């Protein structure tokens, strides 16, 4: 039986286009999906290709059905579901390959291309950077060219087809811009995201073991970017507070459940506003500059002064924050908190305890004990290194009295240990310190390599005071950054080791470009949209205004594009145009010419009917015939001059 609306068969030469489109949309997934999916898709592609080469019919229906069932079964086995992000992508990739296998009619090809467009979206799960955007733009153009090709017939040549596809894409850009700016943005997921929506990220954690921050420091990845309205503060004042660790078990530092009320802050310097764009780290802390000022309502401030958000940070997000660099924190501290920050595991590190005990005996003022400890770090032959020697069963004793080489976490934890042992409440604060100002876009870039640990001690009438023992051991680390602080030959990643050459400049530019992309393209959200609209003169636009505005903008654009299409006049032959002007002038004077009339025949009639025009028109005819049929390039000037000599209006 023949279907009423049967689709025309696909031309032999169209197949490579559909094939290329499917390949361009599925191949980039090869790196993310399980190997068997790639292998299965590749063999289906190969089968489809061979079938096309032999011009064989598609496999019989039951075989295709069996393949679909097999594909679904395999995906179900792998992911335990057919939905969800990764399972869905694997299914789409395999169906795309299956569709090629049964490619027969134009409708099949259109379905394959539509599937390809859909697959484009799935690439953004993995990356939304500039290279991905460009790559997918190319793939979309290829798919569009495929559509043009299958509807335009086999006479279209590849290059003009691609060029036309590019023209269509360029014409689509204004629509995209208008919709991107004005389409009402709905934030947050519409339904619960599957478990696999967001993969693990690197960053600080809520515990610290020897070497954990040193490991983090090996990464040149960007943790967050900050923009200050004016000049950023001095580098040595930039302490970005992460989790505060207050429990020590002899090896690891951990964060305990919060205790005590909200932090009591007294600000001693004006608020410093800034905007921070934090890369996703899967945790709830904001990494705010110490001490955070007034926070928006949906943020929280823990009792240890760590700014937090409600949900773990799984998307790059921008926060408007403020900080007060001079502050007093919890001058009145809860007794339980003070006691908690004096706890040390019993019977460990006897040497260190003895040293601290001797300080307590000799120095009644806690500030003196702090100075004593700092002096020990400054003058005790300590060295700052990323690759410290391993510590034994009594790590503080080993570090303080024998190895004396360590990274910031060693100094911080040894300092806190000494303080607690000498009777001063103290704790470890982790976070980031410093940052690098990108001269291109003036953003301060804070990397994982800026991860840092410092100490905080509680002093009566002063509250919690920051003490950074690393600054004593290696002032360069705090003043200039890790690259300057570490001796030559330390195994830093190449990205942050660039000291001062043109590569560094290239990196600045590339990162500034990425940042601009993140800030203005990817970071365009509900707030930015509202901001834009209010600047356009729609101060409190709700979705109804927005929809109306959007419709109006789209309609205007559409009319513009349509007008462009309709009003475009064909380019005319200049000789013909001049001749038409001459005929038009003749017509005004009453000599109509028929389309089939030759110039010489017309000339004869002019001589008879309008003799006073004959000399001028003779020259026009001669110049026209010469331009049109004579050898060499057309002499347009002569014809133009001749036509100009024809009277404009009827002459008597």
């Amino acid at each position, binding site marked *: 039986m023949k279907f009423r609306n049967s689709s025309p068969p696909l031309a032999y030469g169209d197949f490579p286009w559909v094939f290329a489109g499917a390949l361009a949309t599925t191949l980039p997934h090869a790196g993310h999906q399980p190997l068997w999916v790639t292998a299965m898709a590749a063999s289906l592609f190969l089968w489809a290709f061979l079938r096309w080469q032999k011009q064989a019919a598609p496999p019989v229906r039951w075989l295709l059905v069996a393949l679909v069932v097999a594909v679904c079964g395999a995906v179900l086995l792998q992911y335990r579901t057919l939905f969800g992000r990764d399972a869905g992508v694997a299914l789409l990739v395999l169906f795309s390959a299956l569709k090629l296998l049964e490619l027969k009619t134009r409708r099949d090809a259109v379905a394959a291309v539509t599937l390809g467009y859909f697959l484009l979206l799935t690439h953004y799960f993995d990356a939304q950077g500039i290279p991905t955007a460009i790559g997918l733009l190319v793939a979309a153009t290829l798919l569009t060219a495929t559509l043009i090709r299958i509807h335009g017939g086999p006479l279209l040549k590849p290059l003009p087809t691609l060029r036309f596809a590019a023209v269509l894409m360029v014409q689509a850009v204004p629509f995209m811009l208008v919709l991107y700016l004005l389409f009402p943005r709905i934030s947050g997921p519409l339904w619960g995201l599957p478990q696999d929506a967001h993969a693990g990220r690197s960053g600080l954690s809520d515990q610290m073991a020897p070497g954990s921050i040193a490991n983090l420091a090996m990464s040149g990845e960007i943790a967050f970017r900050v923009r200050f309205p004016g000049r950023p503060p001095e580098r040595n004042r930039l302490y970005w507070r992460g989790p505060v660790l207050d429990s020590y078990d002899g090896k690891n530092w951990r964060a305990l459940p919060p205790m005590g009320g909200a932090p009591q802050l007294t600000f001693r310097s004006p608020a410093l506003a800034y905007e921070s764009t934090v890369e996703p780290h899967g945790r709830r802390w904001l990494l705010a500059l110490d001490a955070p000022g007034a926070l928006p309502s949906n943020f929280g401030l823990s009792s240890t002064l760590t700014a937090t958000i409600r949900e773990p940070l799984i998307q790059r997000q921008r926060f408007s924050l403020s900080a007060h660099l001079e502050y007093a924190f919890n001058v009145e501290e809860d007794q339980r908190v003070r006691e908690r920050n004096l706890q040390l595991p019993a019977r460990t590190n006897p040497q260190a305890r003895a040293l601290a005990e001797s300080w307590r005996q000799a120095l009644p003022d806690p500030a003196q004990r702090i100075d004593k400890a700092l002096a020990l770090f400054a003058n005790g032959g300590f060295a700052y290194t990323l690759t410290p020697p391993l510590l034994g069963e009594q790590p503080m004793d080993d570090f303080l009295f024998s190895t004396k080489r360590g990274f910031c976490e060693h100094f911080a934890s040894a300092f806190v240990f000494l303080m607690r042992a000498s009777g001063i409440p103290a704790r470890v604060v982790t976070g980031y310190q410093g940052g690098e100002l990108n001269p291109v876009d003036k953003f301060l870039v804070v990397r994982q390599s800026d991860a840092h640990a410092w100490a905080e001690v509680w002093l009566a009438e002063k509250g919690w005071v920051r003490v950074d023992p690393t600054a004593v051991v290696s002032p360069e680390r705090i003043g200039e950054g890790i690259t300057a602080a570490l001796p030559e030959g330390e195994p830093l990643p190449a990205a942050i080791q660039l000291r001062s050459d043109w590569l560094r400049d290239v990196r600045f530019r590339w990162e500034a470009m990425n940042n601009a992309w993140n800030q203005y393209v990817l970071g365009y959200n509900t707030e930015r949209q509202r901001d834009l609209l209010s600047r356009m003169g729609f101060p409190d636009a709700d979705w109804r205004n927005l929809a109306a505005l959007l419709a109006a903008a789209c309609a205007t654009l559409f009319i513009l*594009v349509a007008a462009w299409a309709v009003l475009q006049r064909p380019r005319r032959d200049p000789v013909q145009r001049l001749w038409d002007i001459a005929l038009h002038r003749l017509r005004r004077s009453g000599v109509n010419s028929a389309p089939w009339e030759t110039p010489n025949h017309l000339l004869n009639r002019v001589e008879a009917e309008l003799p006073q025009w004959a000399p001028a028109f003779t020259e026009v005819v001669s110049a026209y015939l010469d331009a049109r049929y004579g050898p060499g390039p057309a002499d347009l000037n002569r014809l133009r001059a001749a036509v100009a000599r024809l009277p404009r209006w009827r002459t008597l």
Partner: protein
Amino acid sequence: MFEELKRRLFRWQSDGIAPLKLSQRRIYILPTRAGLLFAVMLLAMLTGAINYNLALGHALVFLLFGLAMSGLVHTFRNLYGLSIAPGRCIPCYAGEQAIFPLLLANDSDRPRPTLRLRANKANEAAQCSLAPHETRSVQIGIQATHRGWLALPRVRLETVYPLGLFVAWSYLQPEMRVLVYPRPEITPLPPEAAIHAAGEYRGDVGQEDFSGFRPRQPADPLRHVAWKASARLGGSDTLLVKQFSGGAASDLCLDWLATPDHASAEQRIAWLAGWVVAAAAERRRFSLRLPGHEIPTDEGDGQMHRCLEALALFEP
């Protein structure tokens, strides 16, 4: 409405060489099934982009929407400004395809690929692509079933180029008609004896020279049957008719009255048409006599077409 239609038809008739130019008023445009599928896909993609908060996903959906919009305009443009002029129709016989040539002229600088023309759903669509500044004749075939004038029904000119997401179409109703000759029933020419009128100046030459028998055809009157010879065949169904030679040079008069009057009018016209074709094929001089209409003796293709036209339009 009738006036409007007449005006349009009048323009076609009076100004045959002036082509009709498709303007925006005559072009309709709607999404195709593929276009609807595309829209559903865009909605699904938008939902995904919102759910996973993909900024570039939004951008991709909006870009594809813009692509569809620009595809719409290009589909429209593929028809807009196209000139269509009716071509010259050639008569055909009933039972054949009547061919209506339409001249499609593209006077723009861009090609107009894959234009499809179709007179009605049953007929196969004619397809053509026009290069820039190309004029091409597209033939629309319509099955001719009855003799007489066959008018070109409303023609749908459509295109889905470039993306296949939208179909733009226009209805053309050129005043074009094809003369459909009667379906000729090929049958041997009648014996001269039946052609009394021709005998005025030629006599009964040819009727004298008996050349043999041939099986009787339905167009042979019963009185020409050679009954004795037929009887000798021994009761088979075939009747024989005497055949005479020597008529080759003589004029024929193909007369309505020479056909059996018990047959239907259409059948008689079919026999007469068959005689006309046969006579022209034998390069004979012949005339045609129909009730109330007579075409004088002449020869050649011109005579054949004159006679066939008379038969096509004859109303008994």
